[in-house]
């Protein structure tokens, strides 16, 4: 849904659900995910399973929650990507191992 008008910043590789994709240095995780053609679904609500996507991009709405380096519920719009960063989408309720 979004494309870049400038490619001046350094290319980095991030892993989304294990798949390597490109992002640019200085991107937030949310921005990087929204620049991709796939996956199209950003996350599924843990309450009702409905698709959701970032809404405010400045840290208020918490619609961009995503797992970063194994830590769940990170605000994707506030965390910058780093080369090799591992990101997992949160698709509905999490499974908790007891």
């Amino acid at each position, binding site marked *: 849904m979004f494309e870049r008008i400038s490619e001046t910043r350094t290319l980095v590789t991030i892993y989304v659900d294990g798949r390597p994709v490109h992002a640019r240095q200085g991107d937030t995780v949310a921005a990087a995910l929204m620049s991709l053609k796939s996956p199209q679904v950003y996350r599924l609500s843990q309450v009702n399973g409905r698709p959701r996507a970032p809404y405010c991009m400045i840290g208020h709405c918490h619609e961009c929650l995503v797992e970063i380096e194994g830590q769940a519920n*990170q605000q994707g719009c506030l965390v910058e990507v780093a080369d090799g960063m591992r990101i997992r989408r949160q698709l509905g309720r999490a499974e908790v191992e007891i």
Partner: protein
Amino acid sequence: MSPELDLIVVGGGAAGVTATRRARALGLKTLLLDEQATPGGNAYRNIDHNSGSEPRLTAALGAAYLAGRDVIGECSGTNADNWSNVQVWHLDQSGMVGILRDGRAEFLQARRVLVATGAMERPVPIPGWTLPGVMTVGACQTLLKSSALVPTAPTLMAGRGPLLLLTACQLLALGVPVRAVVMSTPWWQYLAAGLRELPAAVRMSRSLAEGLGWLARLRRGGIPVYDGAESLSVIGSDQATGLEFRTGRRLHRLDGNLILLHEGIVPDTSLTMASDCDQEWDEQQLCWRPKTDPWGRTSAATIFVAGDGARILGAAAAPLSAALAALAIACDLGRISTQERDRRARPLRTELARHQRFRRFLDALYPPPRTIRGGIADSTIICRCEGVTAGDLRQVIRLGCLGPNQAKSFTRCGMGPCQGRMCGLAVTEIFASECNREPQAVGYFRIRPPVKPLTLEQFAGAAPMSDAPLSRDMVMLAANGNSSRLMTSE
């Protein structure tokens, strides 16, 4: 702990950066905390990078954005006194600030704290606003400034306010397929506002001309502009596919996969509320703002607020309220006399008054939507996090629910990760309408720390580092693990 700090400034936008610079010049040991990677706030986001190496983007973003270079200046990057990528999750009246930095939580302490956390776009619940493909105008502009990303999908922009028109022009300049701009203010609003507040506006003629220029540019660019749109509703099941609205008796249905909404901006009150600073309901702007004295001091002697977080006056006015706060804090801490403070404040106040008069014009031009009070359909989602509708709220109100905090217990409204940031204003207004009470009497959610997601592990790691007594809320938090919901995946 760092008891030797005179001042902690929260927020690295126009207000925070200016206050920091002024405070240091007045001899105050000052620490600047910013949530972003680089200073600039939202108005001047990524200014350092964009003004240097992105000529096409710079041209589209325009002169008002570039003015940020002078405001933000050399205050770039993280160093010993300017910390970036820091989240503030706690503030109390003792001057204790709970932060999260590099994944570690810790407490800092200063004699004074200046909250310069700015504004957020007013969340206005409409049918379909939770669908992917719907975001705020500001969100789209953030993607542009921070990542040079522009929409490729057919785009519709709807709502009111300067940011809507400015962003539409920026997207137009970059060749983005904006299909229509749907204004929820009627055209005669311009005349009415113009006549009433024009003298003030004329004194800010550059800003006035800029605003009029935006509309002209959109029309020249061939973008249809609808005026006086009502009953906005996003169409789609799993993804936005269009926007429906009425103008007078006519029903319009436009196709588009990216719907950008904007209904003006309101102060971000998270931290001033979390620290129990008195708030007042602004009936003109339909929002809460912290009560302050003319220096930006809140009801707590230790906590100041400047910039749009105190009252919406725009990025150009933010350095003025910030400089006033810095003077008052320096005077508090004995660096300057009251005479010196007042003398230096005089020109700042004159300039600030000009901005206040222009803001009155803008407020008359783009009054906030009056439809929230009573005008939201029962089926519309109010609380995005928990999926609570206006009907759910009205039902518990009919059952005798006393206010927003009880509604939270009854319905989970406001209990999700955003902690009521998206639904809070609407909840207050729905209560006001249903119970026929003033919003001030209805009140707001009780905002408790942590105001940002924090894991119990992080919190546990932070607590022992503090030798100051924890506030009641913090002890409660530690005792019953209220924050666990925020950190475990639900």
